[in-house]
């Protein structure tokens, strides 16, 4: 066991990938000498050289598009998109090309490209640097989407993403890059399957499903609720596509109440999908409607008011009150 931050854990995971998989390479803007704007690729160009850690032109469509070409030649590129809000120039390549290549080739071609996207707010940043666009990608068949919430998961999930033969988008919770935790670099343990949800805290009164940056928030909310005598189960979804509905369903069948929280706007979001599926799967177990906690239907607001936008402990507790009131 080693203690490290999420950023360092991804760095170590990428180092392990580059060491163990000679066909893997990293591509992105400023990922070489600078080590990326968040230093996630710090030091890697020195160890693996410019053919494996590629500073690209400033062009997201070009990054994803050339990564697809490299993967067709048998390489496994890991692309870094600098910020969530800047993925959209590459959105066409991700959704019309990367996601569909295996299907449209009748299974003859595989494009195991990984796209890393730092996402989410709470860092006091300027426009386009705090968004959570995961639902836009989750809606696209052919992609897999995962998001680690702690260093151990971050270390293993980035490597599992590269091993996966499908394209995988890894949403990295940027405001948690400096969150420290224990990493077992020898054994993934319970994190062996990146597409499985984890029950982080058991409870009996309600289930709170979260992922990425809101995991610590939900755990803190559960702790606060416990002081009021309420027993809250917390699930870290880990994978947004596919979603591990079995784990969520089992939990709701036990607790009877479900709250889904994410930073992304609730309308058309992951919470709505979970609410619909759980309503079908666990209708007779539900004591209350599934309640969503998330961003409002507006462009991500300016940093000075983002506290009013982002779900926090109180927003989750308020939802819990509403669920328990039924």
């Amino acid at each position, binding site marked *: 066991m080693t203690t490290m931050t999420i950023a360092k854990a991804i760095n170590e995971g990428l180092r392990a990938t580059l060491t163990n998989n000679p066909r893997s*390479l990293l591509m992105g803007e400023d990922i070489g000498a600078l080590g990326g704007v968040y230093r996630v690729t710090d030091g890697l160009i020195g160890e693996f050289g410019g*053919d494996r850690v590629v500073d*690209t*032109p400033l*062009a997201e*469509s*070009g990054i*994803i*598009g*050339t*990564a*697809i*070409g*490299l*993967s*067709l*030649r*048998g*390489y496994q*590129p890991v692309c870094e998109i600098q910020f969530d809000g800047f993925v959209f*120039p590459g959105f*066409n*390549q991700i959704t*019309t*090309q990367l996601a*569909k290549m*295996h*299907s*449209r*080739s*009748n*299974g*003859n*071609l*595989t494009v*195991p490209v990984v796209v890393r996207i730092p996402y989410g707010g709470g860092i006091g940043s300027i426009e386009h640097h705090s968004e959570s666009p995961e639902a836009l990608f989750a809606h696209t*068949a*052919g992609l*897999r989407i995962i998001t680690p919430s702690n260093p151990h998961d971050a270390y293993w999930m980035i490597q599992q993403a590269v091993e*996966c*033969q*499908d394209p995988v988008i890894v949403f990295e919770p940027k405001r948690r890059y400096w969150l420290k935790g224990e990493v077992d670099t020898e054994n993934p343990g319970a994190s062996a399957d990146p*597409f499985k949800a984890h029950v982080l805290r058991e409870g009996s009164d309600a289930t709170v499903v979260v992922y990425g940056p809101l995991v610590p928030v939900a755990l803190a909310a559960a702790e606060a609720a416990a002081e009021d005598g309420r027993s809250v189960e917390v699930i870290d979804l880990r994978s947004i*596509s*596919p*979603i*591990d*509905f*079995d784990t969520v369903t089992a939990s709701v069948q036990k607790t009877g109440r479900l709250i889904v929280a994410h930073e992304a706007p609730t309308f058309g979001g992951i919470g709505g999908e979970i609410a619909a599926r759980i309503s079908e799967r666990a209708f007779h177990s539900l004591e209350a409607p599934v309640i969503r906690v998330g961003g409002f239907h507006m462009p991500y607001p300016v940093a000075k008011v983002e506290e009013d936008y982002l779900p926090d402990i109180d927003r989750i507790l308020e939802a819990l009150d509403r669920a328990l009131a039924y």
Partner: protein
Amino acid sequence: MGATHLPSTEFDGTDIDDQLEAEAEAQLGAPAEPMVQLLGPDGTLGSDPVFSKYAEKLDPETLRGFYADMSKIRRFDVEATALQRQGQLALWVPLTGQEAAQIGSGRASQPQDYIFPTYREHGVALTRNVDLAELLRQFRGVSNGGWNPKDTNFHLYTLVLAAQTPHAVGYAMGIQRDQRLAAANAVGEAGQSAEPKAAVMVYFGDGASSEGDVHESMVFASSYQAPVVFFCQNNHWAISVPSSVQTRVPLANRAKGYGFPGIRVDGNDVIAVHAVTEWALEQAREGNGPVLIEAFTYRVGAHTTADDPTKYRGSAEEGLWRAKDPLERLEKYLRAEGLADDAFFEQVRADGDELAAYVRKTTHDLETPDIRTAFANTYVEAHPLVAEELAWFEEYSAGFADEEPANADQTDKAAR
């Protein structure tokens, strides 16, 4: 670098009005820019300081092969258009007029090269030995691909304009890495025969040249000196919009801004297209970086079978371009030089009819796929949502098991 002795395609910004006027003329069939041409519309072979030596290498059999290929693919085009008109294909994308651009460039490629087409490159597909009946799968609505690119190094058609251009550059970057790895591994193993050097060629049109992906691709290709040839068929019309709306300078000139050679070639001259492409692919394979070729040609027919060119262009223009027909000029040359006789042309026609019959029959026989294959091919690895939806579909379908299968077609149509 090699570009310095090439025919100049330099654009002088001071005379833009002259350029535009000339371009307007070009729309009517008179190209304004220096353009590589070896075989003129009258069938006489000219010369070029750089490219004639490539033409001189072509033996009579190869030249006859060019004609046979162009004739075959034109016949195929007629047949596919007919199949669409008869309701056997959902859509067809005709290539008539562009045979020389496609056969000349495709025949210049080598088996180890990898080709990224857009969606009109049926002639290139022929040169890569793609089964043309397989190619119709996509247009019949039974596949989104139809052939396995790994068999022929001819990628699937890409319908999102220019999206394949960065794929081509990435593939070329992969070739570079393979070559560097092979070179590193070969140290101390002198005398070992290496894999033949490979390059990538990517096709797009004058319309697609406006897409950002072309720009980004050229930036990447130039930055990394990737072994890729950008082959732009300027067929003058992006559906209904003339190429003058896509560009105010000859497209070949754009290469200069990226720092690699750009050449405009007479796209209806199969000998010149072959020569220029062979040169460009050599440049790429030898590590001299990318080349842009603009094949100046014309889409004689409609954009697709859903298009009506009479709404946006005059028949006079079409007539001017028909006078530059790529097949006619090669036929004139072959006959004048005594390289082909009536029997040859008869045989070519017969071969075309045979291909058409084969394509017609095979198209009728193409099997409709089962939607279960779509479930199976969405992901490589097992996926719980796909499995759940497939299970639902099986159960749902089983509910109709008792129904008369004879009426299945009618029921299906009625349901829509």
